[in-house]
């Protein structure tokens, strides 16, 4: 027997940092970070393919580390730092990963792309010169049905070079 849930009641409050901006949001307390991002904050760049932690399409960075936002209660994110695809570029410019993915065919349907981009960013932040095998390993939790992954690997490698040359010149 079911009881009437407080489904529509935005009784929970959260203050956290979303893409570098302090954000306050009210929402139903059972909601996952994925749902709060998409439904309560209109950040629909983060996708979902299963909502069971199987496909990787909902990955975001939590304090710089990739997490599956469908398995995380939004309430757990109080005071923390969340980065989504919407926050990847800066100063009106795309992130080098985004440029490389766009140029090299790493996004076909584009549905798994946001999660792969932020996961790759986490890898490069931690390891600026990953090998092909390290890239494979880092992205192994993100399923892509379109590309066969190879153009994704190449785009990450191209972004590595671009970031390195940018850092050198800076």
């Amino acid at each position: 027997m079911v009881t009437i849930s407080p489904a529509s009641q935005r009784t929970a409050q959260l203050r956290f940092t979303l893409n570098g901006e302090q954000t306050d949001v009210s929402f139903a307390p059972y909601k996952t970070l994925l749902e709060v991002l998409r439904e309560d904050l209109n950040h629909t760049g983060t996708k979902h393919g299963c909502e069971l932690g199987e496909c990787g399409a909902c990955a975001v960075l939590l304090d710089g580390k990739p997490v599956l936002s469908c398995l995380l209660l939004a309430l757990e994110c109080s005071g923390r730092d969340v980065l989504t695809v919407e926050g990847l570029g800066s100063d009106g410019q795309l992130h080098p990963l985004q440029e490389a993915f766009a140029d090299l065919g790493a996004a076909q349907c584009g549905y798994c792309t946001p999660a792969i981009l932020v996961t790759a960013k986490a890898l490069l932040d931690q390891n600026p010169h990953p090998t092909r095998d390290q890239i494979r390993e880092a992205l192994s939790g993100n399923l892509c049905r379109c590309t066969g992954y190879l153009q994704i690997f190449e785009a990450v490698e191209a972004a590595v070079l671009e970031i390195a040359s940018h850092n050198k010149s800076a």
Partner: protein
Amino acid sequence: MPQPTDPPETKSNGNEGDLRVIGRPRRRVDARAKVTGQTRFADDISLPRMAHCKLLRSPHPHARIRSIDISRAAAYPGVYLVLTGKDLPIEYGILPVSQDEQALCLDHVRHVGDPVAAVIAREELIAFEGLDLIQVDYELLTTISDPEEALATPTPRIHDYGDEGNIHKRVALEFGNVDQGFAEADEIFEDTFFYQGSTHLPIEQHASVATKDPDGKLTIWTSTQTPHYLHRALAKVLEMPPAHIRVIATPNGGGFGGKSDPFNHEIVVAKAALLLDRPVKICLTREEVFYCHRGRHPVLMNFKTGVKKDGSLTAMHLQTLIDGGAYGSYGVASTFYTGALQTTTYHVPRYRFQGCRTFTNKPPCGPKRGHGTVQPRFGQEVQLDKIAEKLQIDPADLRLRIAESSNRVTANFFRLSTVNLAECIRRIVKSSGWRDKFRKLPEGRGIGLACSAYLTGAGLPIYWNKMPHSGVQLKFDRGGGVTLFCGATEIGQGSDDVLASIVAEVLGLDTFDIRLYTGDTDLGPVDLGSYSSRVTIMAGNAALQAAERAKSLLAEAVAERVGVPPERLRFAGKRVFDSAAPENSVTFQEAVCLAEARFGTIGTVGSYTPPKSAALYKGGGVGPSPTYSYTAAVVEVAVNPVTGWITVPKIWIAHDIGRALNPTLVRGQIEGSVYMGLGEALMEEQEFRRLPKKLSHALVHKFPSILEYKSPTSLDMPEVFTELVEEPDPQGPFGAKEVGQGPLLPIMPAVANAVYDAVGVRIDEVPITPEKIMKALAEKKAGRAPRFGPSHFPHVDWPEALRVPPPWEGGDGNAINDAPRRAKPAPQRTPEKDKVLSS
């Protein structure tokens, strides 16, 4: 033998150096939206006052519905509406011959997951909770789990239509005297194969949002590959004028054929939005996506092939037994497709095909990448490997001897345009080092080869009519802007980029100068949808025609201004200039303004209809195409003889594409096909199991989740070496042929052939799992046939075959034991098309 028709004479055969957009690796026009997360998929749409819908689905594979009590759900706080089958009683389906689905089952459920009621509520969670409050009284019926059971169990019938009992469709076609062909053979090979079903697994779950517009009309945004066919189904079921329905196909987060049927959830939210006068959304769970399915049909096959000692084929007899699942879907077409393309790769002089599709109590099967041709391609290519070994001919050489060539007509009257299969074979033999590796690698390592052909667009529409298969409108504004309208649907394959690149090339623009409105039944002319690899050739040719027409208008106006004849003008670099004196020029924007001053508002249209088919016999509507793509692949494997574990280090593939419009996207389609083929070869299966008797004994999906339905990850993907064979095809825009499906087909048989080369066992079914390899190795060790696969093909009461003499026996495309169906086709090319192509 039929003679070559007209020599190729496309504009693409002109000066290669003139092409500035076509053939260059480019960022696709929609790339920025995709990498910034701004592509608006269906579930990303949210409208004010939007309600949410969930479907109550049958827990039983086969049952009568005695009664449904919705009263408690309807009274639940927050629930706006509850719908059942009686609210949407009109049947629909993708094919006119199998209108056998109801949006909500009225009185009969046919598979676990069949929807019986819908709850529409303020929040998705309330809708979920409302489902629990609906009481359905079911009377359980005998469940049919596979085609053999279906053949043996004519009642209870899953549907009250179809050929007989639980047989949906039986077909039999014979091209030439096949028995005579076997009599002339030096050797006859007979093999049985099984191809397991698999599902598309697009990462995007199907979603739809419907709303009643302020003027009372209906709009639906939905993840569909076929907005035009959904448009038809909605008009039928909702009994509304089509002109009052607008279907907007949102970019699909992967399709692969899985979003090509009109779906029950789309019709339900449309109905609910109309009744509630507010937007209604549904997004399926992943488990529900497995129930939507329409994936690869499981097919049992029997191949009997006669060969001469030199490898040439004398006759082939193919039988297919097809597990259709619970509904018709594309199944009648799928059935014919299992027998259609055996003749388009290799020269088969005499050919008999018998196919039988049965209903079973499982989610319906339909079109998945390679639709119906993938399963028999597996059988044919593995059998050729066996034939080559017996005849002691290298498998590559055998295929080179029998490969089809350009401008021929096959035994079943399919017109081949350019055929570069032999060149594909030569390329991969060279690049893979085939001659040094085949039968020469150490035990446990092996190499296998296979080939394929695929349609570049279905030659006939689903609803037969004389209208174009695709149309494009172009609008030109005074700012120099070009806007393109077309029904073509972007499913990730790059259809928008194809259209933009063709228009940009003709008009001397950049692809990013063109604004596209696609996949919208209100805004653009009809395109039949993103299926059968048809968009590049059909929407592409329509775009080419529209662009050429605009170009001639602009050229006429500019010619007056710059004082040279129009034919001397060139369009490039966003300028229009005198080719003899390039400084004598105007900007593209000025050209548009001159043309508007001269002719009034500038807009052009283009459309495309495929050439008439030569296959006039009944069933000949499935398989004809303006042209076919060809692929050859070599797969290398390593098989652990202790565990049976298979790894694939490298694949070499060559694809006959005609011309690559954007090589970056072409490579992506090939590698994506290789990836999906490897999944089918090694792990993917849509498998079912019965619950124990003391439970419901229901036939349930074994693993309707991404975690348990295994698909390759980034760690499983091998290195792929891709080569393109480019001979522009006269049928394609700038010579382009398809690439989205064909390259998948050779992968599964090449893996099977490589496994045999590695450890000497034949796995005559997919997926090829370590377990099957271990079983076959055990057979080998015991001195029995070193093989794993099906042992028999059950008896089917086949109908009398339609007998169609092949072209070389004087046939005209009609069956001799059936009334002639259509008049002999007009010449293949129309003057209009010649004009466009030569301009």
